[in-house]
């Protein structure tokens, strides 16, 4: 582990071959390029976020770095070991969360599951029991009284905690976590985030985490990379990335509709066609209001607002509030990946 | 907005669609379904030929052609297995799949819901087994073989009506348990065992003979024996009467019982 970078990847390319059915017997071969030359680096003691829309290549990158998939081109070293040829060594140095809701035996308790996986990692005797207990406490499963419950009785939050506990049970120096808070309630997500940061800061672990929750990334990541269509399109600290969109002003318009459902696709089409707006996102806030976030050019905020309000009112929406905000990581994401998911 | 009402036939149509699409998209399963009666037949005849004489078997069962009888019996057996498995296992498979709540959400009483799910199985599963058996039957007995197998289809359908009622009850009862293993999986071999599918019921212990009186498969097997018999088919009519009676009895029993089941599972949850 002498390398200064915990994880380093250069030019990773991965293609999948799929077959599309055409009629009863005919199948057409299709090649999907999941990664088109990914470069990234994670340092010791930092939380590195890999951000991107669905299908951008985050999980493929994680699987290559954790040795589960072979790249077609390029190379990667984890803890100084090559992920292709020295995969056994790599696996000894990483703790991985691939899914927070799968990957355990249903009829074993959380403790029994952990004990089993710890044994596969070579832990034994008193050390094994001590470590299992330690990680169960660390992720608060003991506190929740869930350590000795069968896995099939776990809530999603408990499953996520157990997944993290398994990644930590052998005390690896590197953690690779694929969307570790996906679908969790706020307290469980917060607990997992706190732990991730603590492990990096206090124990010097390198943590690579994928997410498309920008708020989370801004909160816990020291550096992030944005991946889209299999390529890293930006990387740096959240502050550095935000400076990329400093030339643009985020305008947030909250509005409600007469019917409760906003037809997002038709509204998106209108914004593009009638207002020429390209960089925007649509979501729903806690009060159930629709939130339109648009990046406007400096000096053109008021005009942009007026045109948006005009458009929304014209098609029957009621504007509730308008706000000009500071750029966030979400704005960077919008600016760089608008339209990528489609 | 006007709420859409769901008729029983809508649910039946949906189940037919699902059944047919499943086999269309899983041709390997369809192939396996065609092959299974032959595997059963081969197993019994293989053992029989190795350990003894088929003439002795024909004599003891009073059938003309042992091979034709075993083909018919295997067809009955496989149809029963498919129906019990598909109908009794319906709730369990959907629970595993996570689709159960959505199926339960269909605005219709549970009894009707489960009965609608059983209809494609009752009609199509025997059809698969019968089509599978047809070539051998025609090869052995020509036109008579063809007639025998098609009459067998009619009698299987008659026999499967009460069996489906029974299986629907089991499917409902499975909902009241939290058991994740397929507890219904022993039901099919047990019913076949007491029905004397490859042998006379009289060689079974007394208690099992008595149980077999209320098992519909027994009468379908009796019909198959009558059709392949060397003597006049006296028991044929008895079997047809018994099955008609059971079809009413089991299906009438289904509705009140499942209403109770539904009330109970709504209290404790479907999952």
């Amino acid at each position, binding site marked *: 582990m002498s390398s200064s970078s915990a994880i380093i990847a250069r030019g990773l390319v991965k293609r999948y071959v799929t077959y599309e059915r055409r009629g009863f017997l005919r199948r057409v071969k299709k090649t999907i390029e999941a990664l088109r030359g990914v470069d990234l680096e994670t340092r010791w003691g930092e939380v590195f976020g890999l951000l991107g829309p669905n299908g951008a290549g985050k999980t493929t990158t994680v699987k290559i770095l954790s*040795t589960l998939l072979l790249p077609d081109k390029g190379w990667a070293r984890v803890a100084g070991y090559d992920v292709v040829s020295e995969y056994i060594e790599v696996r000894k140095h990483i703790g991985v969360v691939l899914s927070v809701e799968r990957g355990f035996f249903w009829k*074993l308790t959380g403790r029994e599951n952990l004990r089993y*996986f710890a044994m*596969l990692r070579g832990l034994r005797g008193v050390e094994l029991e001590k470590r299992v207990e330690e990680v169960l406490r660390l992720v608060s499963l003991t506190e929740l009284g869930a350590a000795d419950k069968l896995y099939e009785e776990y809530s999603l939050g408990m499953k996520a905690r157990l997944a993290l506990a398994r990644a930590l049970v052998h005390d690896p120096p590197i953690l690779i976590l694929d969307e570790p808070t996906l679908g969790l309630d706020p307290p469980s997500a917060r607990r997992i985030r706190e732990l991730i940061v603590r492990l990096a800061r206090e124990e010097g672990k390198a943590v690579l985490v994928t997410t498309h929750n920008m708020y989370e990334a801004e909160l816990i990541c020291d550096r992030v990379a944005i991946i889209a269509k299999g390529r890293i399109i930006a990387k740096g600290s959240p502050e550095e990335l935000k400076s990329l969109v400093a030339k643009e002003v985020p305008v947030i318009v909250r509005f409600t509709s007469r019917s409760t459902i906003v037809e997002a696709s038709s509204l998106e089409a209108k914004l593009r066609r009638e207002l020429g707006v390209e960089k925007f996102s649509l979501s729903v806030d806690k009060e159930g209001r629709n939130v339109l976030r648009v990046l406007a050019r400096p000096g053109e905020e008021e005009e942009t607002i007026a045109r948006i309000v005009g458009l929304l009112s014209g098609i029957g929406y009621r504007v509730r509030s308008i706000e000009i905000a500071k750029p966030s990581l979400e704005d960077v994401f919008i600016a760089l990946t608008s339209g990528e998911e489609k | 907005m006007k709420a859409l009402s769901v008729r029983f036939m809508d649910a039946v149509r949906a189940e037919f669609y699902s059944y047919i699409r499943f086999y269309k998209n899983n041709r390997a399963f369809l192939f396996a379904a065609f092959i299974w009666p032959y595997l059963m037949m081969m197993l019994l005849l293989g053992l029989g030929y190795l*350990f003894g004489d088929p003439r002795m078997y024909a004599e003891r069962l009073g059938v003309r052609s042992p091979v034709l009888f075993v083909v018919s019996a295997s067809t009955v057996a496989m149809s029963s297995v498919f129906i019990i498995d598909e109908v009794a296992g319906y709730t369990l498979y959907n629970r595993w799949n996570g689709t159960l709540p959505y199926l339960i959400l269909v605005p219709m009483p549970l009894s009707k819901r489960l009965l609608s799910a059983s209809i494609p199985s009752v009609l199509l599963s025997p059809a698969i087994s019968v089509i599978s058996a047809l070539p051998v039957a025609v090869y052995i007995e020509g036109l008579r073989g063809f007639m025998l197998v098609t009459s067998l289809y009619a009698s299987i359908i008659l026999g499967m009506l009460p069996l489906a009622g029974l299986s629907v009850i089991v499917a409902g009862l499975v909902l009241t348990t939290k058991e994740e*293993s397929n507890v219904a999986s022993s039901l099919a071999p047990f019913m076949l065992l007491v029905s004397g599918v*490859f042998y006379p019921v009289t060689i*079974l212990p007394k208690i099992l003979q008595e149980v077999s009186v209320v098992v519909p498969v027994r009468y379908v097997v009796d019909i198959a024996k009558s059709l392949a018999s060397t003597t006049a088919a006296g028991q044929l009519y008895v079997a047809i009467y018994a099955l008609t009676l059971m079809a009413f009895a089991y299906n009438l029993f289904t509705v009140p019982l499942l209403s109770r089941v539904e009330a109970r599972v709504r209290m404790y949850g479907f999952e």
Partner: protein
Amino acid sequence: MGLSEKAYKLKAILYLHALRTWRYKYSFINSSINTMLWVTIFLLGAILFAKPEDLPRIAPVMFWGVSAWNTVSYTVLFIAGWTTWFLVTTGLVEEHFLHNTSLSTLLSGRLVSVVFESIIAIALVYFVLSSVVGGMDIADNPLFIAYGLMCMIAMALGYGLILSATGLRLSIPGTLLDISNFVVFIVGGIATPVEMLPRPLRLVAIVIPYSHAAEVLRYGAVRIEPYLGLGLEVALSGILGAGMLTAGLLYYKYVEDRYVRIHGVKGIGRM
């Protein structure tokens, strides 16, 4: 990886399977009962082919044939089937790779469940068959019986691993690939001594590895002289058992390294 590390991993896997077997005990008991019911259906049919005076002689042969077949089938089913229905769908394939543990080692541990299921099933079949024929002597030399069974399990384990790995490659459930199950029982020298088979089938039986172990087993059970002589059959059983197991392990490693790591874990079957 050192030997002690490998042995320790095996201990972890045995721990897992012992726990799971206990937690799923009702499912395994259910499958043992299922086996007993199916076996009884076919045995009662097959017995009707035999002369009554031959029954005491052929019953122990039938018993061991069925017992060996049950053990072999369940080894294949529990390994190839479990890969599909459980490991892949629950995301455990990749978790084991991450723990530097080959699936072949994990799957080999399923023998704990096979042994549990088989002991109960064999006891039930003995109970049924001995009550039909009125008592049976089934063990002349337990050492040969144990050796024969162990060799068969090693062969079935190797075969199950090959099916499981092929299932991972082709996205077809391993159990569906096992089309040889019944064929092997009848013509593979498991159901009956090779000597009893028609002459051309004896050649087929000799080619099927199980037949040699079954001949040794039958020698231990009822002192039927093995077809190729005791010494040769003992040697062949051991060599073929070790060979098939090694082939299964090597093929698994090949599929893990050369296929799964390139294409990823794909869904199998209906899921």
